[in-house]
């Protein structure tokens, strides 16, 4: 990783010197070694630039704000494969000014979930260094080594491909590593097989945790509305808190529906949820449904149709086996 980060820095320098870019959207080293943050590096100053096992954040959505002004020159954005899908969506939906962006596809070998490490009982982590697949954790209570592969983000465990979309240049992308451990629809299938009340109980127990912080929405590359219905006092559904379980359901059902057919399954919603609600299971259900009902189409599923589409009653038929 260290090596890749250095090479990326060289690449950035080269592009800056050639006048191709004026700024860089990348990750900045944090306080504890695991908390690198999205950051805009300006004036060629790459101090604290990092690309490490904790650069999980998808930077594509920042491009909405960052590409707005034509006068600012081009911004370079670093995109991992799954980040590029959201980037492509933003481009398709005219949410970014593509001409003001230089998209650099960079390699990804899976990103680490610090929460998983913490949950395994490691406390007081003050510094982390990487040595190939090993993470050396310096903690207030001593040193510890763990294998990176055991603590990957859930989204990396179902990594569906290392395909890059809509990039201006791919950089060292042959260094991508395969991290998929199971099929991404497995969890959805498990839920589908539950009885109606079991499903209800499952989602209740998950959604009751929701604190309506909007992190899932704000990080989502498909949730790019200038003004969300839930923030718009004129929409009739605006709310700042979940007054009860209905509002918890409403928010997540409508959010899933609004990104239905547009969600790129980047997994950010679940990554950022402070309450660890598996929100991706809602969106992935739609992806699975669309695949099963409509197959592969170029257009977002809700923006097109065929005259032979299944009737809504297919839902009852499919559910016949489990009551």
């Amino acid at each position, binding site marked *: 990783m260290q090596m890749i980060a250095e090479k990326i820095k060289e690449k950035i320098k080269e592009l800056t010197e050639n006048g191709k870019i004026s700024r860089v959207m990348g990750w900045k080293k944090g306080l504890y070694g695991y908390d690198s943050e999205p950051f805009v590096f300006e004036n060629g100053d790459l101090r604290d630039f990092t690309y490490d096992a904790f650069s999980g954040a998808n930077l594509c959505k920042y491009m909405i704000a960052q590409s*707005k002004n034509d006068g600012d020159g081009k911004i370079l954005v670093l995109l991992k494969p799954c980040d590029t899908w959201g980037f492509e969506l933003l481009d398709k*939906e*005219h*949410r970014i000014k593509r001409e003001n962006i230089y998209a650099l596809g960079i390699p990804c070998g899976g990103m680490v979930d610090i929460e998983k490490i913490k949950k395994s009982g490691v406390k007081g982590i003050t510094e982390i260094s990487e040595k190939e697949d090993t993470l050396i954790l310096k903690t207030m209570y001593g040193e510890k080594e763990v294998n990176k592969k055991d603590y990957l983000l859930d989204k990396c465990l179902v990594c569906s491909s290392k395909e890059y979309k809509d990039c201006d240049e791919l950089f060292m992308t042959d260094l991508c590593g395969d991290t998929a451990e199971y099929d991404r629809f497995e969890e959805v299938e498990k839920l589908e097989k539950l009885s109606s009340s079991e499903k209800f109980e499952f989602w209740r127990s998950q959604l009751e945790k929701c604190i309506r912080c909007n992190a899932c929405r704000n990080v989502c590359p498909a*949730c*790019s*509305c*200038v*003004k*969300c*219905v839930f923030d*718009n006092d*004129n*929409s*009739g559904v605006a709310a700042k808190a979940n007054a009860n379980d209905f509002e918890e359901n409403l928010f997540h059902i409508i959010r899933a529906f*609004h*990104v239905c057919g547009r969600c790129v399954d980047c997994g950010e919603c679940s990554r950022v949820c402070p309450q660890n609600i598996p929100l991706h299971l809602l969106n992935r259900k739609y992806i699975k449904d669309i695949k099963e009902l409509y197959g592969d189409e170029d*257009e*977002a599923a*809700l*923006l*097109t149709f065929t005259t032979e589409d299944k009737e809504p009653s297919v839902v009852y038929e499919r559910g016949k086996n489990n009551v």
Partner: protein
Amino acid sequence: MQRIGVFVCWCGSNIAATVDVKKVAEELKSEPGVVYSADYQYMCSENGQNLIKSAIKDYSLTGIVVCSCSPRMHEATFRKTASEAGINPYMVEIANIREQCSWIHKDMATATQKAIILGRAAVAKVNLNTPLTEGESPVVKRALVIGGGIAGIQTALDIADAGYKVDIVEKKPTIGGKMAQLDKTFPTLDCAACILTPKMVEAAQHENITLYTYSEVEEVKGYVGNFDVKIRKKARYVNENLCTGCGECTSKCPSRKGLNEFNMGLDGRGAIYIPFAQAIPNVPVIDTAQCIKFKTGKCGLCQMNCPSKAVDFSQKDEFIDEKYGAIVVATGFDIITLENYEEYGYSMYKDVVTSLEFERLMNAAGPSKGHLERPSDHKQPKTIVFVQCVGSRDTTGCGKEYCSKICCMYTAKHAMLTREKYPDTEVYVFYIDVRTPGKNFDEFYRRAVEQYGVHYIKGMVGKVYDDGQGHLMVRGSDLLANEQLTIKADMVVLAAATKADESARKLGTMLTASMDTNDFFTEAHPKLRPVESPTAGVFLSGFCQGPKDIPETVAQAGAAAAKVIGLLAKNKLKSNPCVARADSLICSGCSNCEKVCPFGAITYAETDVNDGTVREKRRVAVVNEAVCKGCGACTVACPSGAMDLKGFTNKQIFAEVDAICRQTGE
């Protein structure tokens, strides 16, 4: 806050017998916004309407709710009433307490309770109604017809006769289309040229018609009544104004390698040519790919020999911008290519021809001057096998799933004509079904079988091959006899499937007119609006909408013309005010709404937005109110709710839902 009046109609005893109308009026009085309520025997009667009018004045009402019959019955009546009393007609809502209540419920208490709830929902809605105004737009009194075949010509003539200007755009050098290539027409066997060419001449000479031949539509903007169209007039390299059509140039052209398209490539033509003798305009065109002058810079014989100095090698494509009130699509059809049907040997054997080629072979003006002969050795064929449904009704994916409709009849025509002219020729027809619905059609087919002795074989041909001695061996199955058979034939004629002209798809996109998967244009309603496209101001004539024979095409052409005349006769178009509206403060410009709009009513514009917090230039949706029909598809495609439907806003529907669900009895 609105001041709402509620008017409960008895409808004689239709409502009052099962609904306690007094109670409904009384209960609704305490609804928010309601300042007046009344009941009356017949609200739609003059007295009833006067009651409403005076209440509007006396109580300064801003909105009214009429609890009565279906809005499909009297919504217009009460809107007019409101308007006459000085309030906006769209401040009226109807609670349907007859069809939806009194007529279907017997119990008075139940029906009354339901009527109150329906009234409540209407009141809740009116509270959020806003005055709406019908839009108006002027109509350009000129029509554009795209395609100069029989469909386009007929439509143009009908419109022109009604006194409106019409332009025909035809991509080929001449008008006439497919019909010009036909020999005789079924079921009357009159000569196609004899009935078509006078119409071509009439179109050319009509004072209201302008022909743009060898031209194509480049760009379409605007909407019903106000289309802006850019037409590309391709360079012919012959000045139309100077040319007299003497044909001197065509005979002097040293290149003879061009395939004569009009004769389906069965003979040759020069690089400068007139497609056929009766072409309109009778002006040659230079095929630059073939012309020696264009290829090498040498030659120029045509120019030298032109007595009127009309040949001009420096001519450039010309662009014409014109405004139209209506556009008629008449792009017609073509036949499919047969590379997917190698079993019939079309590409291998010269004597396997398509029906359209056969049409030219039979035609007196054709390559063989009307003498039926084989393309390979110019001998008269003694046995001819016709194969129907080549690529039609094909569900394998190789051809077209639909029935081409015209093949059964023209094959019967070909068979009959052959037998009549050459009685010694044996004629076989392989068919799946013979479909002959149409006036005198089945009689025609029966004549072919009974009177002319054509052998109809139910079954398909499996293979056509050469016997090495100049014969084509046609192997097929006879399903009725349940046997395989092989016919030694001199000629095989394939009824190749029809398809939409290849220019249609591009044009459909330009016009935002919807098309089906076969590239046929979709009609606004399959039964009730068969000659209109769902896109307002775009009409459909002829084969471009689906397979049709000549009489049907002409009938539809006339119908389309009537629709166009109806449109152009108006000075202003009034539009439904219940249309979509985009809130530019919220719109993200994502294009989702545009993608679901069936009418192409949504475009995008870089717009200055300022909501007090954010001030910027942003791409936002703009609804063309003249084009929007108010279905509301866009409102659901819009995740932010920036797109709403006037008259049926999100808030209004929420209010209706809330009112219906509200707890009762408190």
